[in-house]
């Protein structure tokens, strides 16, 4: 009898103790510690607001945050799409032409090494306060990972696979669409995911430097007014936005490549 009871407890434990609850638990513990720390050490709200206060601010300012979100999403998505599209397009000639690689690649690398945050104020001078400079910064930050991964993916075709296709007398165009592109897909997606993270950072940098709207602008002004809870609320929205973009890309990856190894080791992501 005792044994059966214990087994039942173990079973319930195993059901509750799955991967998702493990992740959720670490977040829960983190927020409880945070809340307790603020409570116990009597930290003032303008220095570090407790999670509950941030939650309250989220409700209080929800319409402001919503409109700011719409603004930030626009520059984020537009910049990201332009970066992904141009990264893919440019990776093709660089991957397949030694000449273009020698001529264009160092130039791209040169622009990549410039700290893009330093360029942001200049973009304000060139493009003003509107959407274009923000799109530009998002683009600059997320373009490179797409390009680099694209080139690596397109180039790394297994020699034996090349031999196989040659022995069939296949045309280059068939090899490209049926072998090279699908085999490059996982590497491309690694780039898309890295770019999604950089793009979110880029969107905020753009709004920090010169903006009168957006989540970055809210963070900046709320900080100026010592409304730290408001600022944290905006950061929360921003984090959710970044994660949403990342997981959308990952979702697309899952749909497009159910065969890929990253889909089999799910605990990694």
């Amino acid at each position, binding site marked *: 009898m005792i044994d059966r009871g214990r087994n039942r407890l173990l079973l319930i434990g195993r059901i509750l103790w799955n991967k998702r609850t493990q992740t959720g638990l670490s977040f829960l513990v983190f927020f409880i510690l945070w809340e307790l720390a603020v409570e116990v050490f009597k930290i003032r709200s303008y220095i570090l607001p407790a999670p509950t206060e941030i939650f309250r601010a989220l409700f209080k300012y929800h319409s402001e945050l919503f409109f700011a979100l719409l603004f930030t999403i626009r520059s984020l998505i537009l910049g990201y799409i332009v970066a992904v599209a141009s990264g893919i397009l440019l990776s093709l000639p660089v991957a397949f032409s030694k000449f273009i690689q020698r001529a264009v690649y160092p130039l791209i690398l040169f622009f990549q090494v410039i700290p893009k945050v330093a360029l942001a104020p200049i973009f304000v001078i060139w493009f003003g306060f509107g959407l274009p400079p923000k799109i530009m910064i998002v683009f600059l930050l997320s373009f490179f990972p797409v390009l680099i991964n694209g080139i690596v993916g397109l180039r790394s075709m297994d020699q034996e696979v090349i031999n196989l296709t040659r*022995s069939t007398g*296949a045309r280059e165009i*068939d090899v490209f669409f049926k*072998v090279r592109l699908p085999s490059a*897909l996982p590497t491309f997606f690694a780039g898309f995911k890295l770019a999604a993270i950089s793009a979110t950072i880029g969107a905020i940098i753009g709004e920090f430097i010169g903006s009168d709207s957006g989540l970055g602008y809210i963070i900046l002004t709320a900080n100026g007014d010592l409304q730290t809870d408001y600022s944290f609320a905006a950061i929360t929205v921003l984090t959710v936005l970044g994660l949403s973009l990342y997981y959308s890309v990952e979702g697309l990856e899952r749909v497009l*490549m159910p*065969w*890929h190894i990253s889909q*089999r080791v799910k605990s990694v992501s």
Partner: protein
Amino acid sequence: MENSKFLSVQNISKTFKTDKGNVHALDDVVLSMTDGEFLAVVGPSGCGKSTLMMIVAGLLEASGGKVRIRGEKVVGPFTDVGIVFQNHVLLDWLTTMGNILFQTDMRRLPRNRYEERARELISMVSLEGFEEVYPYELSGGMKQRCSICRALLHDPPLLLMDEPFGALDALTRDQLCIDLEKIWLQTEKTVLFITHSVPEAVQLADRIIVMTPRPGRIYKEIMVDLPRPRYEEGIESEEFFHLVEQIKRSFLEQGVLRK
């Protein structure tokens, strides 16, 4: 006389240029195959037997000599062929069916005309039920079976096999040998089979070429007159063991094997 041969390898030699100097892989290899013959090439690793197959396939250029298939000189990849590589070389994103049909997709042959044949081949190698499964869900032996189907799909007269069972465990290997002999008896292809396994060669081939260590030359040619199908009793006969011993002895003579 020469043109009556299906395939002839005429004085092929191959030297690879590397950073550390030249590697002389093949030296004056001469051999020929008749239509429908199963020829095995055995030799120690590094003797250039895979290189030889690549040259026959036209995937590698010889440094000297030439290959003729049906009297025509091989220049560039020879496409009227099915190749089974040592690794299965299946594409991750295609199912078993997709990987087999890859052969005809690349050749721009109509899929619907070959699907039926693909199913026949699948049942011939006992892969039924795995048609829509991706390679990562298949065992090593199943992957190689799939790769054999791909090589046979377009019904080529010539089958080149480069240590196709080398990466498999002993039992799977034995099974695939049995299956391959069955397939060969049914399809009557000309097969060039590269291997380092002596019993495998004796079990399958009509004739065996024994190669020397690098630079690879032909050391000996051995006819195998065992009755077919060999998987029934051939591999237990005294003659079988005698032939295996004979080839092993030739490796001892060359110093490939030492006592």
